[in-house]
């Protein structure tokens, strides 16, 4: 090792700076808080439009959904000015995302079928509403968890 002329305190400060900068990069990559309720709301509106079974409402709902989703994705993509390394997410992060999606799907299908079995009207909208509400209330928790997973990775580990 090349002998550096820096003190342990300076080395510790440098490590703190490295960690802070990595956290800064991670924060820039995560989806913003409004993303989850926005996607959930669009999903519910689209499902409700389809469930009316009126062609013009379905058409308006479909176009609105496509435009809304397109606007959301564009907005997120435009603020995406750095791509955090995928390996920071790791297996734990990947499993958390898959688990979250599967939970939402199970919740939506479960509540939708339950509403149908109970003879309630608008069962699909109820299912989508349960999913959308859960997304709005818990999406930021997934984001926070992913942030903590990435921040906990050793610094300087390369790939």
């Amino acid at each position, binding site marked *: 090792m*090349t002998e550096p002329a820096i003190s*342990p305190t300076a080395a510790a400060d440098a490590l703190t*700076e490295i960690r802070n900068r990595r956290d*800064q*990069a991670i924060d820039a990559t995560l989806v913003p808080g409004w993303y989850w309720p926005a996607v959930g709301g669009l999903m519910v509106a689209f499902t409700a439009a389809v469930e009316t079974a009126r062609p013009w409402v379905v058409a308006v709902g479909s176009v609105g959904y496509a435009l809304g989703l397109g606007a959301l994705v564009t907005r997120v993509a435009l603020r995406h*000015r750095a791509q955090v390394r995928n390996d920071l997410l790791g297996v734990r992060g990947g499993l958390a995302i898959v688990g979250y999606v599967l939970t939402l799907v199970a919740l939506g299908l479960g509540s939708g079928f339950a509403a149908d079995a109970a003879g309630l009207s608008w069962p699909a909208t109820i299912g989508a509403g349960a999913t959308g509400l859960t997304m709005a209330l818990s999406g930021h928790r997934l984001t926070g968890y992913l942030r903590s997973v990435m921040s906990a990775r050793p610094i300087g580990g390369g790939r």
Partner: protein
Amino acid sequence: MTAPRFDELIHAPTRLSLVSLLAATDWAEFRYLREQLDLSDSALSKQLSALEQAGYAEIRKSFVGKRARTSVTLTRRGRDAFAGHVAALQEIVARAGATVTPAADH
């Protein structure tokens, strides 16, 4: 495990911040780096040129629609140098018996 190797080029304050940001990313836009580091265009260009000349960074220019986009990525050599530098810093701290770095780094 990466061999500790203190890197004077990386350790310069502004470059340490810049390389730390780049090391966490696959790529980052010039504009993003400039804003995060609170640097002028010329100051950032100067730092990036130093990294590019050392073979640590690669600068790519592309177009997104009509908008020119300059993005920066650390090369394999740059990532290895950064990993060696981090290991050297950790070694200095460990030798001094300090416990400043988080447990996840050990």
